[in-house]
């Protein structure tokens, strides 16, 4: 079954994995995660600066645009460790925006924005709408040409880290076709952004009202590339989400094991009961499988056809593993698991978040059926 993707791991990936693990463990202890949930911005700007200094924002940006010139494969271990330690911040959003510019932007836009993003300036994507459709080409928001450029209208939802972002790249319909436009966040009218209440409290997402927003002619990304860019964004987002989910799965399993090894009932450590032990093993095995799919997807990302299969499998398996591991974590913590103080809920909420965005296991299986049969 070689056409489903192979495994591969580069030295750069190994180095980044090592560095990211130490960094994220250091910078994102659980009390910090909890404190940032209550913080309006939701992330620590000093940690963000550190991340920029480490060069992680430029990993998948070519050298000619101020990046490191590696690929998404090398972002995967970083994303995995960010997810593992629930390190909050606009890394996912900014990386996605950079990729959108890279595949869909004009040469001028790439030269203008990518070096700034590589340095740590924040950007994000505004893709989804009221329909809740996962298909990124199902767009109702629109752009209309005016004398000054384009007038936008409609609403976007789940715009990650929009309040922190300098630039928001939104999908709209322009002349009946999908298009992407870059919006300076500072140009938005007051009240255009509303912070949304989302299941994953470690993240920030906003509703964006485009009515009355205008952008200059230079703001539109290359219209000829928009459809392809949206397809690419979908895959890219799923790869990064799978990475974040794998990391989270690993940590929630470790968190559960720690409790199973300390809590005593009926005079026994509860981890000795097979009714708790065996499902924990099932979660662990599912996690190992998810991680294998993840690194295969990272390795095959650029292979025509195979890349898409590998990514969809990775996201489907990551959803299965993460959802199960976090669900069982709540249950196995018993009464404590039902409280806000138990960390199991953080992971379970995040798993639900990722299943809801860019497709859950069932959605990707449907797409895989079309690709495989």
């Amino acid at each position, binding site marked *: 079954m070689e056409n489903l993707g192979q495994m591969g791991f580069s030295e750069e990936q190994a180095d980044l994995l090592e560095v990211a693990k130490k960094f994220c463990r250091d910078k994102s202890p659980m009390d910090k995660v909890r404190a940032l949930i209550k913080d309006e911005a939701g992330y620590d700007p000093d940690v963000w600066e550190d991340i920029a200094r480490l060069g992680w924002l430029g990993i998948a940006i070519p050298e000619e645009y101020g990046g490191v010139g590696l690929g998404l494969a090398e972002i995967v271990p970083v994303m995995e460790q960010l997810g593992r330690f629930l390190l909050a911040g606009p890394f996912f959003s900014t990386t996605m925006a950079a990729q959108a510019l890279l595949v869909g932007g004009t040469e001028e836009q790439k030269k203008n924005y990518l070096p700034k993003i590589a340095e740590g300036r924040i950007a994000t994507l505004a893709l989804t709408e009221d329909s809740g459709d996962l298909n990124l080409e199902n767009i109702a928001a629109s752009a209309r040409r005016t004398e000054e450029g384009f007038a936008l209208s409609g609403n976007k939802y789940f715009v990650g880290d929009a309040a922190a972002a300098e630039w928001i790249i939104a999908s709209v319909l322009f002349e009946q076709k999908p298009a992407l436009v870059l919006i300076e966040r500072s140009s938005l009218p007051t009240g255009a952004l509303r912070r949304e209440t989302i299941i994953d409290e470690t993240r920030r997402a906003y509703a964006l009202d485009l009515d009355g927003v205008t952008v200059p002619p230079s703001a539109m990304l290359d219209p000829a590339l928009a459809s392809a860019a949206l397809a690419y964004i979908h895959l890219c987002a799923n790869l990064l989400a799978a990475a974040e989910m794998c990391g989270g799965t690993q940590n929630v399993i470790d968190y559960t094991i720690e409790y199973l*090894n300390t809590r005593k009932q009926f005079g026994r450590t509860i981890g000795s009961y097979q009714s708790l032990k065996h499902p924990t093993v099932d979660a662990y095995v599912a996690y*190992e*499988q998810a991680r294998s799919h993840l690194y295969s997807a990272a390795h095959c990302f650029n292979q025509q056809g195979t890349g898409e299969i590998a990514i969809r499998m990775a996201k*489907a398996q990551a959803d299965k593993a993460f959802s199960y591991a976090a669900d069982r974590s709540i249950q196995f913590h018993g009464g404590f698991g039902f409280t806000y103080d138990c960390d199991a809920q953080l992971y379970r909420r995040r798993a639900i978040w990722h299943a809801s965005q860019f497709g859950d296991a069932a959605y990707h299986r449907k797409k895989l059926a079309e690709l*495989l049969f």
Partner: protein
Amino acid sequence: MSKANQHEVDEFAKDADAWFRENVNPDPGFMLPLTFMEVGTDQQFEFLQNWQGKVYEAGFLGVAWPREYGGGGLAPAFQNAATDAMRRYNAPIMLNAIGLNWTGPLLLDIGTQAHREKYIKGILSAEDIWCQGFSEPENGSDLGNAQLRAVREGDEYVLNGSKIWTTLGNYAKYMILLARTNTEAPNKYAGLSFFLSPMKIEGVETHPIRKLTGEYGFTQTFFTDARIPADGLMSEEGSGWLVAMKTLEYERGARDGLAGGYMITPLDAFAVIELAKKAQRDGAPVMDDPVMRDQLVEFIIEAQSLNLCKERGHIAPLNEERPMGLSLSGKLMGTEFVRRINEFAIAMQGTKGGYYVGDPNAVDDGLWTRGYLNAFSATIGGGTSEIQHNIIAEHILGLPKR
């Protein structure tokens, strides 16, 4: 073992490819067993014994074992290339599984010079078939409680008791045997010893066991005052449990120490897709049924998981935190998958799922139905899936035994 020169490995791989292309007989005229645990007739046995001998003679088995005992003396990469060629041409299994995967690696690791000279070549050529005497009727998963007695008398041990699930027991010349030499040891494990024991001697009787499929493949083996030479003792008295655990490591660890080939036919999940295209449901191919389609995708994802986990097992930085995790989970993942996908394949066949081996209308000669029933040999044998859960929980995840 010399280090592999890539050019030489490539040349060797080419030779192997040509040889297996030429020599694999796609239709011997009768159904071949899919695993070494399913050899039910003399015809199957003889075919597979000849086949292994032929592969060995051609230089594609034991390639990485030392030349002085009959191996090829080359680096493991050469054996892997030959095994890959076997897979490519769907070659029959290697019959002498216990010898190749258990006894051989054990002798090369901790055996004496005399052991190696006596046994290794016969293991590779399949002239000397080996079986394993671990499980007992009353002690299956609780292997450490094995009760078969071995009492030292001069230069011999006298054996009394019985072993069960002896694969190829009626064909085997030798057995690796776990027996109790001390009934007063401080704990049950410390009373066990490990023997290389002859089978064709007075006092050893094998009774074939009829499996749930209606076929044969295992025996129960009875020992009644059977006398075996004392030089068959591996290591020393009381170390049997440690030696037995060591043999398990060879199987579970990297394939580098093993003789090569496979003892269980790799299952091709894509073959199930063909079933789904052929069988009908509500006037259309099963493949068009959205529910079956979705389940099929799940199986394909899982099949790919198993491939990828094997590959990832070799990438050290991706196994840093639980280095033995993937290899110790392999049996659980693989055997349960095979059982479930065979079960699913039966469901794919509609009414024809009701046929069994022997009926001319049975889909693929009843392969899937028989495969499902036989799949339990692997989810039960070698430590049940439930015991595998315990092993992973305790040894990998660090959960308490009690």
